[in-house]
Every structure is written in structure tokens, then in C-alpha cells.
């Protein structure tokens, strides 16, 4: 099990256990973490699981694919550390990962 910390826009912190091989999005939705809508369930079709990855972790997560890059290009409030959490695969190196949830997914 890998521990992931989600910080809501209002500062509320959720620490959840994520499954190896799953995604950061799944860790959020399965524990009912608010603010990650994940409408399409992880198909990289909707851009509603946007998160900001804590800078210390940017080098450790898997790189962006072209589909994710294009989707993010059109999301709201995108920053250099923006990712779609359905495209971040969980592995043991991510134990302790911290991500922040934007105010809105639209």
C-alpha cells in the first residue's frame, strides 16, 4: 500500500491508501475525496480529475502522454505542475505523494 495525501482547495487534508498499479484518481474516488469528479472514470476523456502535484514529486511520477497533455492544455487554471490524476500510475516510489485539488474541475 502507498500513502497519498490530497489537499482540498479549502485546505482539508485527506490521507488515503492507494493500490499499487492503480491510479491516483482511483485512490481519491474510492475514498470519496471531494473535488475530483473523474466523470469518465479514468478514460482520459473528460479532464475532471485535475490535480497539482507537489513540486518534490514531479520528477518521480510517470510522464504525461499526448492525450493527457492535450486535455490539460484546455483545462481551467492549469499550472506547470498540473496533471490528470487518472494518468498517474501508483507505485511504491510514490509513497507519501502530495497533490492539491483545484477549486473547480471546470
Amino acid at each position, binding site marked *: 500500500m502507498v500513502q497519498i495525501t490530497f489537499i482540498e482547495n479549502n485546505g482539508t487534508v485527506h490521507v488515503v491508501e492507494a493500490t499499487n498499479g492503480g491510479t491516483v484518481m482511483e485512490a481519491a474516488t474510492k475514498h470519496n475525496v471531494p473535488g475530483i469528479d473523474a*466523470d469518465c472514470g479514468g478514460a482520459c476523456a473528460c479532464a475532471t480529475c485535475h490535480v497539482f502535484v507537489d513540486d518534490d514529486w514531479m520528477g518521480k511520477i510517470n510522464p504525461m502522454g499526448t492525450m493527457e497533455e492535450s486535455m490539460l492544455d484546455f483545462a481551467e487554471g492549469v499550472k506547470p505542475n498540473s496533471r490528470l490524476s487518472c494518468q498517474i500510475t501508483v507505485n511504491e516510489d510514490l509513497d507519501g505523494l502530495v497533490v492539491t485539488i483545484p477549486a473547480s474541475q471546470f
Partner: protein
Amino acid sequence: MAKSIVIIGAGQAATQAANSLRQYGFNGKITMLGDEGIAPYQRPPLSKAYLMGEIEIARLKFRDDDQWERDGIDMRPNAGVANIDRAAKMVVTKSGEKIAYDNLIIATGSRVRKISCENSELKGIHYLRTLAQSDALKADLDKAKSIAIIGAGYIGLEVAAIARKKGLSVTVIELAPRVLARVATPIISQYFENLHASHGVNIMTNCALKAFGGKDKVQRVLLEDGREIAADMVLVGIGIIPNSEIAIDAGIICTNGIDVDEYARTNDANIYACGDCTNRELDLYGIRMRLESVHNALEQAKLAAAHIMGAQPPKLDTPWFWSDQYDVKMQIAGLSNGATQHIVRGNIADNKFAVFHLNDENRVLAVDAINSPGEFLIGKKLVLASAKITPQIISNLDIPIKELAAHAVE
């Protein structure tokens, strides 16, 4: 204020309703009554990554099994409902249990339309809607050498793509003159016909099914024109039927699905309905219809929960859909019915283009985006705004997609 809310169903709409009720601050009892024997899971991957064996069921579940209890939701996967007693405000399960409600949310979804013809009950004839059906289909796909697919809708074409990836020979049989005839315009139909043909799928349009043939299991498909297609297995994907009988029996007004208003409310003020089982208003297009999609399930569930809790209703989104076939992702914003102009942006041969569907006034009614997420996301906004943009602007690739809205005219 409601103390007990019962949700009939355990799919995407039911799950979102429960989630949203908690999110809007409902502290009372939530009882979810499912009948598939499994906790709620995502259905879209059943014809895509799950069928291919790329993702396990545990990852498709909306929650870990013990999380339901932690969220105070009494999720019962083996509790089919026999009837609704509106006078007593009670739901009666098939096992005879009576569960009282202050508010009831009907999220019973839909079921596959079955085919009825000679030998249509033979083994090896599959349908796809539930996890159990996907598992059965997958087991046969892993043994068979050939499959005949009846119906060239999304389910039929997505399974065709998976079957080709698994090395089966694939024949798709469609009654209409083109694939995706019910949901897409001819440009998109032609694109997918070419895509599947290039992957070796034999697509037969204008073909009426007559019967199936075979001894213990299906071995061939017989067409009205006398032709026979040999197949080790069959998938039938000819649409879905709303599960509205329980509402009809309770005297709730239903016309092709359960009629709901803009708050997802039925004609009984205590009873809401959301998802595939409903017939809803779509103000954007000024019509009532059944909308079979994830977007609809989520949106109506949020509307119902907000109304029950007296919260501000969520902003309505453009209806949207997606489909994955081979390495093509199609994302659709809006409904193209009523469009009179179909403007291509990009080059179809590049497998990266979008079709903008406009009415006579150049208002954008829908956008079909092939491997073009920007066109999809911008398209959603243009459709929601009923933006008016000329075909010349839309097809001009020198104008970046992000700047399209700036070219809208009044």
C-alpha cells in the same frame, strides 16, 4: 428534512446520488438497493479495457467494498425491488422486506434489447451490459476464432475492435445503411467504417438478420437475403430498454422512460429518478428524450440530490459521450440531431479531426472530435453557449481552436 433516502439501483447514477447527498450535507440514512450481486462499478470499460483484459474489476469499483459502510451508506447488492408503495412511502424488496423512505431515487438504469428469432436462445449468443455479461463474452472471445456482431452501434463497434485485437475474424451486421446510424452523422459513420475495414473487420450494412443456426451452440448467422455467415460466437448490440416498469406499476408517469422535470423529479414530489431509466428535458435543444450516457447519469443524480437538500442546483453541462476503438478516441459534445451543416476541421486522413454540426443559423449544436481533445473541450463550451460561428472560421486551421469562441458572431 428527509431522514431516510432509498435509492433503487446500484449503478453510476445511484452511486453519484449517494455521493452527492453526502456532499450536500445529508446526514440521514441512505439505503442503496442493487440486484447484480456486486457493489457498484463503472460500465463503460466493460466493452473496452476490461474486455481486453487490461484492467481488473477491483479498479472499476466506485469504492472499495468497506468504504460504503465508512460513508454510512447501506449498500445492498442483492436486494431486487418488487414494488413501490407510494401511499405508505415504502419500497418492498423481492424478499418481502419493507423499507420506508422520505425521498426515493429511482436509478434502475436500463437493460439490453433482446433479439427474437429462430434459435436466438442458442449458447454463444451474447449481450453486453453487465459485468457478468462482459465476463461471459470475454471467456468466449478467448476461445473463439470468429465472431458475428449484430448491430453497429457503439457496443458493437467497440467489441469489434477488441475482438480484432484478440485475433478473431469479425463480421459486423447492420440493418441500417451505415454504422452508428442512430447516433452519428454520415461523415463519422464513413470514418468508422473505413477504420474498421482497415483493421480487417467485415462490415455488412443494409443487412437484415433472419435467424441463427447451430446445434448445441451458435455456428452461423442467417440473413434475410439468404446469405450465411459462419461464426463461433455472436454479440448482439441493438440498444437498451429503460427499466421503468417499477415506476409504471406505481403509477408514476412514464413515456419511454420515467418522466422527470429539471430537478430530476417525477410527478410524485417525493420521488426522483436519474440516469438511463429517465426521460428528461433538454433545454439546450428544447426537447425531451432519453439520454443514455455517463454524463446524464451524473448530472441528474446531482440535480436530484441538490433538490432534496434544497441546495443550489449544479450548472447543466453539454451532453457528452466518448468511445475508444483501436487507437482512436472519439469524444462527442452535444447532439447533432437537427444540424444542417457538418463542417470538418482538420484532415480526416490524419485520424485527427473534428466535425462541427451547425444549424441553418450557424449555431454549433454538436462537435464530434476524433483524437482531438481540444476541439471536444472547446466544443462543449460553444455548444452550451449556442455560439454562432461561420463554417469558414471553423474549418480554418490558421485560427487556433482556443480562439474559435472569439470569432462567434451575434
